């Protein structure tokens, strides 16, 4: 779990984001962070903080989402095999990213969902056809059961060589 000083720090960050309302954060509070406006996935990540259908996130929820990005400690790896998987496990980190793609929550990234993300990440200089072609190839690479969509298991498999633990960790949350 996160250390006490980190929790205090994050709480002060939480309250500083909360301009004047002194309570849960709303989407606008997040949108006020200027760097997010120039992050291609910014708005989707903001959404990830908010539980299904809600407009507010309290500190607990805030921490919960951030907890995904704790670095994986070596000693944690061997420890608790029986308990629930910690939020910052490799699988949960990947799941976080997966959920950003999978908008309709059917546990599959369809071609269209992939296209949307691609378009967000690539900008205006690529034509639809090129983009479609890239999307097709990406799915082809990962798809194993032939349903032209990427399931979570396929997602995990195709990224097995990527150092997710490092790419999706903030040491700050140590």
């Amino acid at each position: 779990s996160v250390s006490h000083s980190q929790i205090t720090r994050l709480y002060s960050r939480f309250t500083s984001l909360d301009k004047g309302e002194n309570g849960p954060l709303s989407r606008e509070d997040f949108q006020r962070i200027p760097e997010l406006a120039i992050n291609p996935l910014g708005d989707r990540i903001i959404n990830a903080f908010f539980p299904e259908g809600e407009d507010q996130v309290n500190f607990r929820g805030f921490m919960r989402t951030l907890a995904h990005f704790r670095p994986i400690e070596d000693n944690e790896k061997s420890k608790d095999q029986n308990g629930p998987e910690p939020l910052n496990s490799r699988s949960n980190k990947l799941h976080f990213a997966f959920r950003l793609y999978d908008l309709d929550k059917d546990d599959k990234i369809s071609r269209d969902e992939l296209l949307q993300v691609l378009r967000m990440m690539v900008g205006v200089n690529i034509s639809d056809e090129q983009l479609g072609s890239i999307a097709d190839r990406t799915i082809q690479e990962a798809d194993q059961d032939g349903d032209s969509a990427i399931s979570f298991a396929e997602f995990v498999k195709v990224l097995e060589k990527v150092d997710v633990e490092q790419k999706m960790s903030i040491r700050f949350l140590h």
Partner: protein
Amino acid sequence: GQRSSESPKNSNQSFAIVSFKWDHVKEPYIIALWILVASLAKIAFHLSHKVTRVVPESALLIVLGLFLGGIVWAADHIASFSLTPTVFFFYLLPPIVLDAGYFMPNRLFFGNLGSILLYAVIGTVWNAATTGLSLYGVYLTGIMGKLNSGLLDFLLFGSLIAAVDPVAVLAVFEEVHVNEVLFIIVFGESLLNDAVTVVLYNVFESFVAIGPMNVTGIECLKGIVSFFVVSLGGTLVGIFFAFLLSLVSRFTKHVRIIEPGFVFIISYLSYLTAEMLSLSAILAITFCGICCQKYVKANISEQSSTTVRYTMKMMASGAETIIFMFLGISAVDPDIWTWNTAFILLTLVFISVYRVIGVIIQTWILNRYRTVQLEIIDQVVMSYGGLRGAVAFALVALLDGDKVKDRNLFVSTTIIVVFFTVIFQGLTIKPLVQWLKVKKTEHREPKLNEKLHGRAFDHILSAIEDISGQIGHHYLRDKWSNFDRKFLRKILMRRSAQKSRDQILNVFHELNLKDAISYVAEGERRGSLAFIRSPSTDNMVNVDFSTPLPSAVESSVSYLLREKAGPVCLDMQALEQRRKSIRDTEDTLAHHTLQQYLYKPRQEHKHLYSRHEIMHSEDDKQDKEIFHRTMRKRLESFKSTKLGINHSKKLNKIHKRDRGQKRRNSSVIPNGNIPSENPVQDFTLKEKDLEFSESEENNDYETLHLGKGVDFLANVTKQNFTDTPAGIDNPVFSADDDQSIYTKFSPWLSSEDTVVPSQRARLQLPYSPNNFRRLTPIRLSNKSTDSFLLADGPEDRPRSFLPESTHM
């Protein structure tokens, strides 16, 4: 031609029509000539792209200087020109340091201040001490032969050769694109170590002067105290002048033309004042630049700001050019040349080795406290990039030959060290870094998925970092911004500047609205935004995906490979391998396209500082694109929620403002049939100082200005809509279509805005840009993908204008 006077006898009796007054103009003329020569040299260098890619400009300039010095010497047998310390310290160095301070990325700088200070202070002391002591130790063994120096002289030499030089470092780092943390640490270190250098140099110089006998503990203590006094004093002087400058800039509204002058004069005064008080002048002017940035930029007009920027860059770049050239010229002075192989060689060895050791130890210590770790490659770059430059040379030239008997030896050694680091290390650092980076990412060719999702992870991480407020100094930063907001701004910023507080607004303002219009208009003009390509990809246009022609594709890809050197290079190797192994040219193209066009994550793409360019273009373009898209989406969701819920409240307030005829005509009213009490129509009309209820202040600012932005976009697209033959201007007619299209759209819309506006609210927004999107399917081709893309961003809107256009 000139006509001399008639005859010597009559010279003072008759009127000379023209005369040759060389002595009269000699000094300024020569100075101007040298500046001209240096600038011409720069032009000459940049004619050859190949050379400049490999050899850093600083090295070229030094060589040029050597060459020129040689000519002068051969012609006159005198070394008439050299880099005098006075000229250097008073005229050449201040512009460079001011430039560094004024353009310093403050947030990054203060975020890493601890590390920077550690390297600057401890690192420099370490370097000085170890180098001086080692040289002395070796001297004692007698290898160096007979020298007239004692321990103190060696320490003096060590202290002046130890400091990493800001001029040289930046000159080289511009070639090597490193990550922002590494950059700021080395950059910051090179600036801040001046205090240490000054203190050490002065202390040891006076110790040498008063003689080793008289150096007591008291003197040493005084030396240590002087360090704190010099550094803190210099900083305070800088801050004081920054305050002064910001204050003055607040009142310069009516003297816009000389506004830029204040920046330079007051900063220069800070430098001279610190120098006068024997404090650290470099620190003074650095902090003057750092602290005044924000307020000055807020206060002065756009044109003045541009003037300041360009003038600063020009002066800094010019000064740097001259410095390097003169370093070369000054070397051609046989009088000073004293050769002592052992000394010179060992100096080189020691400074390199001790730098490496110092960096490793300090990094190890730092990594225990830092949130962002410094990797091996960072340490390599830091050690290897610790260049010595003109500051060391100027300091050594200042030495008094009577007091320091081996001055000439020191000068010669310093010259050699400077040349070595600038030329050799400058030349080799780029290949070294690339080799290391490649080493890290070699072995496998990454799959498409890995690239794509890897990039997504980078973006995610950036966002989470920004949300969580990365680095631990957050508490201080918050305290500072509170203090700033409550007091400083009120004093130092003009009232008009204080208003635009919301940071999103600032970003939006910076992204010039006009650019936004012209950007979309450009897309329209060209027929489709999809056609905006860089020239090198024109080759790709003719490639037919369905039937790959290996030769054609290969030539274009290799053309691209050749063109796109630099950061794309590394993946090209993987790409090349893959190409040979897989022989799937389409796949290669997919990889390459992705690689080329994926937006870069924050960590990578910010080129923070460059002495030779005003940073613009690529990064801004990416930021603009993403920003526009994000803002439109947010605005739509905002509008649908706010309007749906707060319908009546806004109505009354907005109704009043009328932006004027032009706006009204071009605003989103198709024809007079539409009842004017439609709220949205007025929603698009805004004034700057519209007063909304307090609790929604910030949101309204957002809408306010976003509304303006959307206005523009709406206007632009509106105009284009009227031009098209299909001519659906009147949404009324398409209202029926809207319903059906709406149901098709809602899954995606509702996923983007998780607050689902009421149907009523939606139907009452017939004229929002949102709605224009819904018009477009009518024009659309049968491409299924387009409907999805439309949900994402109106950049796609223009694309649909030419449904028949073939994108390939």
